[in-house]
């Protein structure tokens, strides 16, 4: 079965090979987790999808949105897809939002460009989006600035902005890492609900296996630019096949697998 977004043997080279042939299929309504430690290439993989890699990076393989190849697409064409069909949510909502523009401004600009709505329709749509992500007093919130919101509310606003043009794919890179755990719980529930109700294909990049276990349907574990193991959530957590995955799980505090084994540096 091919998905809405298909990554096939993707390679990324920035001075040296960093992603070495990654293949993933994202499906509507499913959250696909990409786990791994620092430097494993998980963030580069998600950035490559939207052509957000540094200029000196070279890529190989293929990233297809439906039948459209994204990897060798020109900037102008890519801009029609960025934010429209593929959107992104980042780790730190306070740097993802522009501090000097109102929330309303940031929530209507791309909607007017991509969907061609007029000012008042875009505004109505923005209120609707803020209500959906449960930002209180949505209509008032449009006139306020990012610093007037808490971290959790800001991330909700970022999610509203990402989903405003009704994309097919959401790339979420560590979306809850900067938040308090009590706030994180609410955001995870929101992402899960939105994925289901909007038939959104989500790529969730996180190092946090707890977050992964809470909302990912499928999990791929990356190490050193490659996927070492990919399976549905239950299998990955209950019966990991690869030594590296076992090591990651065993390293968690309070893990059932904790037996004094440590991650092996020399590889599996």
């Amino acid at each position, binding site marked *: 079965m091919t998905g809405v977004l298909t990554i096939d043997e993707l390679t990324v080279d920035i001075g040296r090979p960093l992603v070495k042939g990654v293949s993933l299929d994202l499906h509507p309504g499913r959250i696909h987790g990409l786990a791994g430690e*620092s430097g494993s290439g998980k963030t580069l993989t998600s950035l490559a999808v939207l052509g957000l890699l540094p200029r000196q990076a070279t890529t190989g393989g293929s990233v297809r949105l439906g039948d459209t190849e994204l990897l060798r697409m020109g900037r102008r064409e890519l801009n029609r897809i960025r934010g429209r069909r593929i959107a992104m949510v980042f780790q*730190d909502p306070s740097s993802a939002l522009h501090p000097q523009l109102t929330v309303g401004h940031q929530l209507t600009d791309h909607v007017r460009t991509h969907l061609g709505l007029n000012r008042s329709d875009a505004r109505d749509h923005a209120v609707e989006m803020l209500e959906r992500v449960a930002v209180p007093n949505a209509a008032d919130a449009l006139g306020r600035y990012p610093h007037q919101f808490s971290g959790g509310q800001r991330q909700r606003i970022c999610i509203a902005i990402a989903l405003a043009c009704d994309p097919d794919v959401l790339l979420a890179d560590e979306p809850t890492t900067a938040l308090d*755990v*009590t706030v994180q719980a609410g955001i*995870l529930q929101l992402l899960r609900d939105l994925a289901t109700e909007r038939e959104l294909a989500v790529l969730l990049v996180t190092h946090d296996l*707890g977050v992964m*276990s*809470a909302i990912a349907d499928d999990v791929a574990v990356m190490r050193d630019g490659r996927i070492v193991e990919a399976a549905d959530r239950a299998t990955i*957590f209950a019966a990991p096949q690869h030594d590296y995955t076992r090591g990651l*799980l065993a390293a968690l505090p309070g893990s059932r697998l904790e037996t004094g084994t440590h991650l092996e540096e020399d590889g599996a």
Partner: protein
Amino acid sequence: MTERIVLDARDLVVRYPGSPPVVAVDGVSFTIAAGETVALVGESGSGKSSVARAVAGIDRPAEGNVRFDEGPVEPLGVRRRARSLTAIQMVFQDPSTSLNPRRRVGDQVADGIAAARARGLEGSRPEEWFERVGLDPSWVSRFPHQFSGGQKQRIAIARALAARPHLLVADEPISALDASTQSSVAALMRDLVAELGAGMLFISHDLAVVQRIADRTLVMYAGRVMESGDTAKLWADPQHPYTRALLAAIPKPDGTGRIPAAPTLDDRASWTTVPPITD
């Protein structure tokens, strides 16, 4: 074994002006022994940073007192800080603002070394500290912008440790870093601090990291310490309803797809009605 107490904070109250004034810290007491890592956890706005600023002498607490190495901590003023107080060092959240962008990183670490020498301690070289925090010693002549966020924070840690502190106060030192390097930087801090025989106050909202590195944990809510104790014990058997709620909000890596419930407003109202539990 008698533990040498490096920091003794008693009944700290921190207020910020306003009408009415905001009580950020409402009677917090704790001690930190040499070689010990004490974590301060809690949600944003619970008063963690205010505690850190008061114990490091950046802000003067409205009430209570802070004693460091048996002497009082005089808050920073326009004059040079007393030499003995350079044995308190801080690491801040954002290394791109805590390092001077126009000075070579080796020179900035040398500032720390000079502070140690001024207290009569032996000198050292920036390269040694670079090596200790896992950076290439040949990088000392570079500028901050030539490093990644995680590397910059390692430099800030090197500078703080080069002053041979007895107490390191670290306020969210890992939260601005790339998520997957956070845990290794935190572990590095804990190991180096213990090696130097210093105490550390480690503030973080990342409970998983705290569980790994802290000897003792203080849980703050609404300006008060709701529960404190040995980290392992606190995690295994939390007593206060707030601690329980906080720990229950951490998603478990059990593969069940269960999302923890976010606390309700009623939950929040109930937490402050239960008296603090301390060991």
